[in-house]
């Protein structure tokens, strides 16, 4: 499979503020790729470099096989973009804006446009300034989904949408994937990313913190394990035996009740130690994306001195 977006060691500063500090990102053709990070991590800057709106200071970015800065216009015929904060032309109606944006990309499928208007329950006759935030977002989403493009760049596209509309959005993204289109979905809504994305890149302070499929990412981290045992080990205390195991954290032993987190690589060793004592009940749970994310975020918060965070 070939990469539709390739970013290597991308750097971009605004004055003394470093927004991107060696970002790596690879989006494969036909996948929905989640782009996760807290506010101010550099997600929007990265997307805007990919759109040729910003000129990178260093590193390499390739989009649909072209240079996002040099080939901007040609590349933009093949992609659709939804910004996180949509501003509309105050004197244009929503319907006019959808048609205009679609035509500027090279055409809309009219049937699809009307179908999407209905699914998103948008009144296309209102003027731009009369729409609420969620409805402005819908205008940009409909214009993007109704365009016949290979790639969708979505920058926190569901901000302001109600849960019902978020569900419609998820269906639409799934349909796009089924049509063979690629999607780069920047978000900090983890449930959304978890539900939609094949692969994920987590960005932290302008750098790639982790990248891979959700399964791979989980593999790199710890699994929570909770067990009730039949008996203590023959020699020594239960606690001592477990504490000696590699890759174990958060150990909590009460009588024969064990709770801990273990590096996924060492899960097997833990289970065999536990089973030597006779397992009565056992539950193990892979980490949620939220836990993955929080782990990076907490590291981040801990390593940034107070006041340096923006």
């Amino acid at each position, binding site marked *: 499979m070939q990469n539709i977006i390739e970013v290597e060691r991308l750097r971009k500063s605004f004055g003394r503020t470093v927004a991107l500090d060696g970002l790596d990102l690879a989006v494969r053709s036909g996948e929905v790729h989640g782009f996760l990070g807290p506010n101010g991590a550099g997600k929007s800057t990265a997307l*805007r470099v990919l*759109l*040729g*709106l*910003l*000129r990178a200071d260093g590193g390499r970015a390739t989009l649909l096989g072209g240079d996002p800065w040099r080939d*901007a*216009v*040609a590349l*933009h*015929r093949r*992609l*659709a*973009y939804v*910004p996180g*904060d*949509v*501003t*509309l*032309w*105050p*004197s*244009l*109606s929503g*319907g*006019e*804006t*959808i*048609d*205009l*944006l679609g*035509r*500027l*990309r*090279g055409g809309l499928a009219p049937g699809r446009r009307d179908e999407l208007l209905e699914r998103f329950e948008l009144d*296309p*006759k*209102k*003027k731009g*300034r*009369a729409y609420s935030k969620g409805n402005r977002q819908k205008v*940009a989403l409909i214009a993007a989904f109704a365009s016949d493009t290979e790639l969708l*760049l979505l920058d926190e596209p569901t901000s302001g949408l109600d849960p019902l509309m978020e569900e419609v959005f998820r269906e639409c993204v799934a349909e796009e994937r089924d049509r063979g289109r690629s999607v780069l979905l920047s978000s900090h809504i983890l449930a959304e990313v978890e539900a939609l994305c094949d692969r994920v890149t987590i960005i932290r302070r302008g750098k790639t913190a982790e990248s891979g499929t959700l399964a791979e990412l989980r593999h790199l981290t710890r699994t929570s394990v909770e067990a009730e045992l039949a008996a203590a080990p023959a020699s020594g205390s239960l606690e001592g035996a477990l504490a000696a195991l590699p890759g174990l954290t958060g150990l909590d032993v009460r009588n024969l009740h064990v709770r801990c987190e273990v590096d996924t690589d060492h899960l097997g060793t833990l289970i065999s130690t536990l089973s030597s004592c006779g397992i009565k009940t056992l539950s193990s749970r892979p980490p949620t994306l939220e836990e993955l994310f929080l782990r990076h975020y907490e590291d981040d918060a801990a390593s940034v001195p107070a006041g340096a965070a923006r």
Partner: protein
Amino acid sequence: MSAAAADALAGVPDLTKLITRRERIRLPIWCYAILASVGGTAYSFKTLYSTPGSREQFADGIGRDPALAVLYGKPFDLTTIGGLTTWRMGVFGAVLLAIMSIVTVNRHTRAEEEAGRFELVGAGAVGRHAPLIAVLRVVLGTQLALGVIVGLVLIVLGQPAAGSFLLGLSIAAGGWFFAAVAAITVQLTDFGRSAAGLAFTVLGAAYLVRALGDGSGANGPTWLSPLGWAEQTQPYAGDRWWVLALLVLATAALIAVAFRIAARRDLGSGVFPARPGPAGGARLLRSVSALSWRMQRGGLFGWAVGMLIGGAVLGSIADSIGELLGSSARVQQLFERMGGQSGIENAYLAAAMNILGLIVACYAIQTTARLRTEETGGRLEPLLATATGRVRWAASHLAYPLLGSALLLVLAGAGAGLTHGARSGDLGTQLAQLVGAGLIQVTAVWVVVGLTVAAFGIAPRATAYVGWIAVGICILLQELGPTLKLSHWITDISPFAQVPRAPGVAVAAEPLLVMTAIGVALLVLGLAGFRRRDVG
């Protein structure tokens, strides 16, 4: 104070501070420009025409130029420094303050509502009309202080105290009146741009009505215009304080009307309701050019009507202009020197065309600065994310300052040609001559547009500042250069000083070509910069 009244005023002090903070650069620039023009004018008159004899000579010369009376206001007493300053700066200063009022009131009321920021403020413990009260406080207060300071400066320059304060306050009252006008127009439409447009239309009409009155010698029209009132206070020449009182009363009445209207409308909407639009884009709405047309057509149409009327009014006065001269022997000499009746008419029309060129330059800067407001407003980003190139997008907007300005100048020339031609019985010649005289001003407009685009490409944050300061300098040099006997080295900085003084002279192609070349070079520079820089 009753509880209700206290509630209505809640938040005013904080909003006043906020507005003062946000205007801490702009308002001082305005004040400084006005203070420097009035003070500088008075000081120059004092050094240039220090003896009564030299002043009399001046009064019989430039002071009797009827074109100046039409365009800048009627002189009442040109034998004193104060009287000279009043004639030169009274109406002009009031117009400057009126612009300051309209822009500032609009920015802190309707534009705030439109941007959605007022919602944030209005949700606090803030009275419904607090923003309007606060901005009027800031604007009226600043202008009052400015008026007093202008008076003090004139007193320091040795002028009588009563006349000095009256002149300062007359200029300030011109600003007050239009602050009140703007307070009403921001209630009417739900769109900042049209609210400001409406207020500027009132200002333009006030200027033309006054010009008509001062140019025709009939006093009636002058009294219909608030700018006429500011002139009719006659500082240093009778000191008619009651006319100032009239202006203050009218201001108070208009402000009361503004609050009455404000009390009846919803936050965020105007008195004229917004209508729904079409459900889909018309077939023509398929390019950025079509989009720019949608955004700019209203403004262009309004300006077109305004320029046609403005040209027509200024043209209609031309053939009676010689009559204002009077009949002393010295005047007769001057009359001959200016080339007789047709010479005077042509000199007047050339000056009028120059002024119209400067006014169109304001349209040009307004539309050029749109490049930047579209960008900062976040509306450029989604367009550039489509298959639209940067230069193509910029060109779709620049058509208005570049070609729209040419159209406006043709219309202004046509208006003047029609009325002047009809009255002088030589329609064909006058129409052709004046359309040409109007059109050649566009080369100077292109220079300031080029400068603004260069700023947009290279230092985008400075776009509007560069444009407006450039036009401001051109206006000041044009207004004050001749009477202050400024060196040509200085006045020639203004491209408008380079435009041939048509009609009545053979139009040399060279300055027009040079200015076009400069304009194009700056434009190319700006667009090249825009292609290379970050957007957003």
